Every structure is written in C-alpha cells, then in structure tokens.
C-alpha cells in the first residue's frame, strides 16, 4: 500500500479520479449558485455562464425575502432536523447500548426487530401515519415531522451504534461499576464519548434526507406556519410559470445550513467511516 502511494503515476491517477468525482458532485451545486445571481433571461440564454456585469441580478433573493416567510421556513427546517437528530441519536444510542451490553431474553430478536426498519421504507405507512397524526391532533405541528423522522432514523442508528458499542472495552465499563458509577453515568460519560465518530456518521446519514424531505412536510404539516424550507420553496414552482430566480436563490440558501452541520460532523465522520472499514 505504501509502495502504491509513493508511485507518482498512481498518486496522479488517484487524485485525478477524486478530483473528477468532486467536480461531478459539485457541478449541480455550482450551477444553482451561479444562476441564482443571474437575471431570468440570462439563466435561459446561457445556463453555464458566470454572472457578468450585464446578467448579474439579485432579483431572486429579493423575491424570496419578500414573498413567503422564508425565515420561518428556515427555522422550521432547522428545528425539525436538529430535534429529530437529537432524538435519533439519544434513543438510538440508548437502545444500542442495551442491546450490546445487557444479556436478556429476546436480545437477538429485539435487535433484529429494530433493524427491520432499515429494509422497509417508512413511506409505505404514510396513510396510517396520517390517520394516526389526525387522531392525535398532531397534524400541522412540527412534532408530527420530528416523530416520523425519529422513527425513520432509529433502525439504522441502532444497527450502526450497537456494532460500535460492542467494541467499547468491557474493562472500562466494569471499572466504572466498581467505582460506583450508575449505568447512566457509564453510558453518558464513558461509552458515548468513545463512540462519537459513529454518532457523527449516523447524524450525517440522517441529516440530509430529513433536511431535503418534501413528502412528509407536504402531507403532515403543509400549514403556512409549519412549512419547511423544501416545501416553502415549492411556492415558486407553479403549474404554468416557475420563478426560477426565486427557486434557485431559495435552494442556494438552503444548502448553507446543511453545509455548516456537515463541516461540524465531518471530522468525526471521517474517523467513523474508516474505523468501521478496517474492522
């Protein structure tokens, strides 16, 4: 492996492939960004051109700011994403700890049952979920979304975290027990810090689908005051006329928070992915 790394041709090929992939991955984001700063005419005439003095325009951003309560949508998305992630990580980690640490009847079955959700898309249950939310009066509240996303994220979280928790040294937990720490203290103070990379991995895997989701906000919380960013941006897309400036501007701004969250998690994430890979 070291030899391959030192070989200049291999190094070039490796970097070439990675750069190519980066370009492909970033291209749509780039197109959205540059076009959000152009006039409508310029967007259609030359979609790939950079904004020039002629074509530069902030009309999209102005529309977004004026029309619709963009900051409210933004805040809703943020609340839903952060709260869902918090619950997924909290309950996922606790369930994973119980499954990996304690011997009890039905441990394996319980683990399989919790992992089953990975294979069954939650959207199949949309009608039942909607009926349930109507019955409990949670329709058009952010709680409806938070609960659904928590349920959606838990299976994968439990599955990944329990694998990592099994690797935490038994001696360490036992040392804590002998020193008189409660099981909760052992979990929060000793185990959680050691599985932080896995937590970050789970957080990133869950964060992006939640942030981008259109389906559940549209069905469970379409009211003006509970609209999420993705749903809010849809007002600019009409059946006959679409305000592309506004759509592109809204999307550009929607990218930012995910980017920030991702940067926060990414250092942990890299460790999480690699440490999982060599095991």
């Amino acid at each position, binding site marked *: 492996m070291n030899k391959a790394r030192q070989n200049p041709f291999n190094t070039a090929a490796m970097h070439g492939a990675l750069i190519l992939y980066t370009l492909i991955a970033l291209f749509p984001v780039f197109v959205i960004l540059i076009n959000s700063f152009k006039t409508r005419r310029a967007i259609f005439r030359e979609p790939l051109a950079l904004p020039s003095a002629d074509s530069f325009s902030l009309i999209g951003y102005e529309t977004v700011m004026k029309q619709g309560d963009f900051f409210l949508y933004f805040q809703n998305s943020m609340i839903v994403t952060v709260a869902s992630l918090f619950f997924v990580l909290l309950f996922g980690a606790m369930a994973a700890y119980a499954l990996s640490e304690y011997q009890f009847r039905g441990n394996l079955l319980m683990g399989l049952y919790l992992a089953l959700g990975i294979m069954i898309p939650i959207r199949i249950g949309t009608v039942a979920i909607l009926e349930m939310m109507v019955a409990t009066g949670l329709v058009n509240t952010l709680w409806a979304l938070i609960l659904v996303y928590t349920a959606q994220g838990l299976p994968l979280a439990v599955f990944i975290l329990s694998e990592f928790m099994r690797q935490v*040294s038994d*001696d*360490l937990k*036992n*040392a*804590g*027990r*002998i*020193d*008189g*720490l409660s099981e909760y203290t052992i979990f929060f*103070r*000793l185990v959680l*810090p*050691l599985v932080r990379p896995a937590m970050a991995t789970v957080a990133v895997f869950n964060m992006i689908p939640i942030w981008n989701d259109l389906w559940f906000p549209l069905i469970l919380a379409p009211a003006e005051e509970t609209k999420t960013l993705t749903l809010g941006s849809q007002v600019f897309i009409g059946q006959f006329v679409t305000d592309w400036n506004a759509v592109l501007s809204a999307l550009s701004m929607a990218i930012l928070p995910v980017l920030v969250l991702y940067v926060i998690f990414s250092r942990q994430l890299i460790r999480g992915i690699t440490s999982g890979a060599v095991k």
Partner: protein
Amino acid sequence: MTALMLSNVNKSFGNVHVLKDITLEVEEGEFVVFVGPSGCGKSTLLRVIAGLEDASSGEINIGGQQVNLVPPSKRGIAMVFQSYALYPHLSVRGNMTLALKQEKQSKAMIEERVSIASRMLNLEPYLDRYPSELSGGQRQRVAIGRAIVRKPKLFLFDEPLSNLDAALRMNTRIEIANLHRALDASMIYVTHDQTEAMTLADKIVVLRDGRVEQIGSPMELYNNPANQFVAGFLGSPSMNFLPEGLLGDGGQNTIGIRPEDLFLADDGPLAARVSHVEKLGGDTNVIAKVHDQSVTARLFGQHAISEGQELRFTYAAEKAYRFDADGQRLR
C-alpha cells in the same frame, strides 16, 4: 478473620459450566494467586468475586459479610484490569479520585489518600496528565493507584502485567510485592504465568476447566503436587513425564522428574540423544530424546554439549513423582 470465603460457587453461561464447585478461603493480609491455562475460568472467578458476574449458585463472603446480592461498588473491593481501563476523559488525579467522590468522601481525605498513593507509586509528576499522555507502565501504576486510594478490604488484580514488556514486567512484579508488604492488604491476583504465581503468592490456587486442582503455598505445590497437571504447570522448564516402561519398571504409571533433578552419569539408566541446547550462562538446558520422549535437563553451570551428542542421565529416585493413568499422584 477471613478476607474472602467462597463456598461451592458455580457459574454457567447458558449450557457452559464455567466454574464448578469452587470453595476456598483467603486470609486477612494474604496474597493469593489464581493460576491456570487460558480458559480455565480464573478471570470469571475474579469477576464473580467482584460482582461483575453473578454466581449461578454458592456463597461469596467478603470480610465476613455475604455479598452475593451486593453491587460491585459496595463490596469493599478494588480491581486492577489487564487493559488498565483508565477513564480517558479524566486526568490521573481524576481517575484516582472518582470512586471516592462517588462515595461522597471529604475533600481533605481524598487529597490525603491521593498524595499517599501517588508518593507510593511515584506518580506525583503525572497527576495532571491524561491517560493518553502516559506510557504503559505509568498507566498500570495509575490503575493500581486508583485501587489503593479506596483502601479496599480486598484487591483484585486481573492479569495486570500481561500488557507490559518483559523488563517492565519484572519491575512491576517487585513493585506489587512491595506494595503488598506496605499495605498489608488482602490481594487476589489472576495470571496464567507461573513465574508470577511462584514469586508473588503466599498461596496459589491452581485452576483447570473451572475446578480447583490444588491450593497451597508455592513450595508446597512445587514439592508436593497433587496430580500431574499441577506438577507440569508449575516450574520452568516444566517437569518431564516419562512412561514407567522406559525406566525398566514395566508399570503403566507415569514418572515425573523435574529438569533440575536429572544429572549426567556415564552409567545412568536414561540413554538420550541431545536435540537442542540452551546455554543461559548460569544454567544449561539440555533438550534430549529418550526413545521418542522429549526430556529437558537443567544442568547447573556451563557444559560443552552439542546437538546430536549421546548422553546418559540419572535421577534420584526419591525426587521422582509417580502418577497413575488418570494423572493422580501415587505416593
């Protein structure tokens, strides 16, 4: 007073019977070593004593109190783990004081105990460092310090030296022996290394397959093993076992002779061909074949013996042990 009393302790994991009717006593101030090959249940026994595993049946008494249902932290024990098991997010001081803080001891008392323990273990310069900034030997000393500050009725050591390199292992072994003298505390020490067992123990408990094979002082076990397993496990190089037939007695039993009890003699009864020689300076270990049996002789001093040489050995009949076909000692 007895520091620890186990009566008929059994432990099963599902269908696997790991500990079988363990009964033993540890006197106040005694250093007891559990020794046995890996998988013999010695670590499990230690965990049962610590309360980290529940005994399936039997009674555990620590300091005269039955503790079967008492949680580990209330048993009056402290444990040193093979992997050190230091809390990575706490400094050395934090590691050592955590248990006392959990017990809500006064600040002055905690401070005093830490300063005594850190002086004993030469940890004073490191009190504010984190475990990741310490070497293996230092970490092990912190783990021992964490046990000392609690002033437990019973110290439990779970193979504490097996992660250290050979030189450090010897030093730490001596340190632990000194510590035992200085603290005058009861200690239980688990190891698979018979040298550690012989050098540290007041009393050795030899375990095999979850059963106690023999209990006694190191020299008792060495001079008077109850069976072939104990005879072969203690002593390095280990005891030679030869079928009685080879020695001309014609029986079905096995004769055990310690390597140091074999001597060179031109008219000795054992004709051997040397297959390997280990020259250690002070001693010479000769590994030779008697018919198809490998035999090790430990000769004092230096000898000019080389591979392939034909030798004859003799032994003192009163120093030979006889074992029946089941490995039980015949006297």
